[in-house]
């Protein structure tokens, strides 16, 4: 303990001197007057002062090994290195936006002025929208004109809302720490951008390379981030999943990047069920649920926890691949219901009773659905498949598929007289 404190002392002394000199010159203004975080921090400090430090050690500041051990016994890990904590003990805790660096402060002034301007733009634009809405349709130039005008103005308003916050370093920091509040448009925008940078590209590549897109659905432009978990293990798109693992229904994490709530239909379909009679492949619906609400903040969907009497049309059927059959692609689609209106569950349940050959295309046409998210995993014959087959009563569990021997064409046959 003593070492690190001694080591960080000169640095801290010089830092403190600059702070004391620079601080009174700073104007203590906060960009966001309506946030209460600063107040909360002051309260916490006042509280901590009343109790001696060794009674209630702060995990961000503790340096002595005894106190650290005590904290660890309580189940709280100290934050950062001991040297860092020792440095923080003596540092005056200046909030980030008041750090006394001249160029930084000048830059902040520019950004704050820009934000003010953007806020003015936002109020002006929302007033303009309200005015246009008040105008009767005939004066505005017809239904279509008014609608398109309103739509364009709302889009511009959304854009302005993002522009107002995109330059804020604290927003960036919060987002990078994963503490962004996704009910706010700026964090949704940042999350969307991050998703599109890598994960969406991977997903689109997998579903197009494995030909899910023309096979199962003609077109899909994913706009929601979908993560799939089997027993808390995340499955990457296109991964092979053990048959034993996929006996339980997966959990989903569906991240919507727009405001508001959406009702979606979730369908898991196997597009590679071998059909020996017609020498081809069939479809099989492994799961179907309708009227699942998702929003930007409520993202978790547990497929086994959805209510059976208002959402689940076809419960989870564990996917199995017969021995010798090529791997099965199990594609999961998040289908947006039209205008987020609930489907009539009883009618859907009465209609969709047959799992075999229930095509997603049919569903899409029948209920006016639109694919907004996709995921994919694969299953093949492995050592646990046989037990799973017996559990679910799969017919012909102990049958192996073999390729038929193809007789070579006459001119390709080995011909001993000419073979030399």
């Amino acid at each position, binding site marked *: 303990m003593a070492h690190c404190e001694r080591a960080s002392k000169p640095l801290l002394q010089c830092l403190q001197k600059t702070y004391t000199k620079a601080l009174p010159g700073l104007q203590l203004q906060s960009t966001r007057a309506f946030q209460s975080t600063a107040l909360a921090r002051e309260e916490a400090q006042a509280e901590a002062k009343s109790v001696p430090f060794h009674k209630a050690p702060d995990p961000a500041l503790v340096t002595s090994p005894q106190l650290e051990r005590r904290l660890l016994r309580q189940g709280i890990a100290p934050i950062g290195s001991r040297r860092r904590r020792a440095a923080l003990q003596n540092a005056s805790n200046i909030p980030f936006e008041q750090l006394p660096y001249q160029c*930084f402060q000048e830059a*902040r002034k520019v950004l704050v002025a820009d934000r003010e301007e953007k806020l003015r733009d936002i109020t002006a634009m929302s007033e303009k929208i309200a005015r246009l809405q008040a105008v009767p349709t005939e004066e505005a130039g017809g239904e279509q004109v008014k609608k398109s005008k309103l739509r364009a103005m709302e889009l511009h308003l959304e854009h302005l809302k993002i522009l107002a916050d995109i330059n804020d*370093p604290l927003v960036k920091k919060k987002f990078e720490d994963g503490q962004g509040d996704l009910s706010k448009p700026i964090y949704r925008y940042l999350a969307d951008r991050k998703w599109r940078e890598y994960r969406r590209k991977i997903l689109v590549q997998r579903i197009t390379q494995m030909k899910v897109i023309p096979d199962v659905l003609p077109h899909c432009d994913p706009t929601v981030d979908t993560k799939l978990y089997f027993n808390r293990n995340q499955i990457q798109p296109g991964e092979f999943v053990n048959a034993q693992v996929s006996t339980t229904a997966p959990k989903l994490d569906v991240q919507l990047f727009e405001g508001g709530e959406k009702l979606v239909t979730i369908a898991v379909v196997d597009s590679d069920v071998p059909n020996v009679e017609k020498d081809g492949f069939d479809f099989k619906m492994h799961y179907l649920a309708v009227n699942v609400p998702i929003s930007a903040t409520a993202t978790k969907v547990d497929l086994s926890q959805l209510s059976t009497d208002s959402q689940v049309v076809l419960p989870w059927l564990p996917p199995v691949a017969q021995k010798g059959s090529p791997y099965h692609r199990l594609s999961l689609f998040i289908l947006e219901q039209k205008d987020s209106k609930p489907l009539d569950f009883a009618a859907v349940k009465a209609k969709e009773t047959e799992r075999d050959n229930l095509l997603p295309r049919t569903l899409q046409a029948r209920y006016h659905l639109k694919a907004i998210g996709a995921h994919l995993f694969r299953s093949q014959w492995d050592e646990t498949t046989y037990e799973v087959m017996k559990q679910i009563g799969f017919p012909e569990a102990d049958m192996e598929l073999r390729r038929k021997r193809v007789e070579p064409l006459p001119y390709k046959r080995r011909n001993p007289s000419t073979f030399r």
Partner: protein
Amino acid sequence: MRPLSPVLASLANVFRIPITRAPVRPTLTNEILSSTSTPTSPRSFSTTSALSKRKESGYRGDRRILLIRYFLHHPLTPRPLRFSRTRFLRHWTIHRAWNLYQANQRRAHELELQRQWQSMQAACEELRTGAGDGGKLFRKSMIKTGVFRDLVPIEYARLQTEGPAREGWNFEWKRD
């Protein structure tokens, strides 16, 4: 390096042995043995060919990689720029503010140019319609002949003053 004898060369050609740089006989036989015993040895992803990998080949590695290493680890090479979290955030803030400032300046400049062009056009339009001569003045002023030949008078090449002084230098002048 000694060239192969013609007999050896023809034999090598028949048995399809690649003629190497230093075809000393023992290494040649070693090469044949190794190539026949392990025809497809699993090699990792490497641009070095198997022959140059051998110790006695005298191969010193890829020259480009050597140079990259040399300059990257040279003591005169400055260390990479590494920032702490807050310092990076401060840097980012300044960067964004600078970009914003430049964008605003560009926009203001563009608007100014647009304003100037429009006011010029408005003046021309006024001349065409409002002068009361059926647009004759406007048409005359739009004739562009000689605009690149008959340029500004040569006197304007010099800063215009009241005129050259009659006497070149006022020697009587003294500072008060």
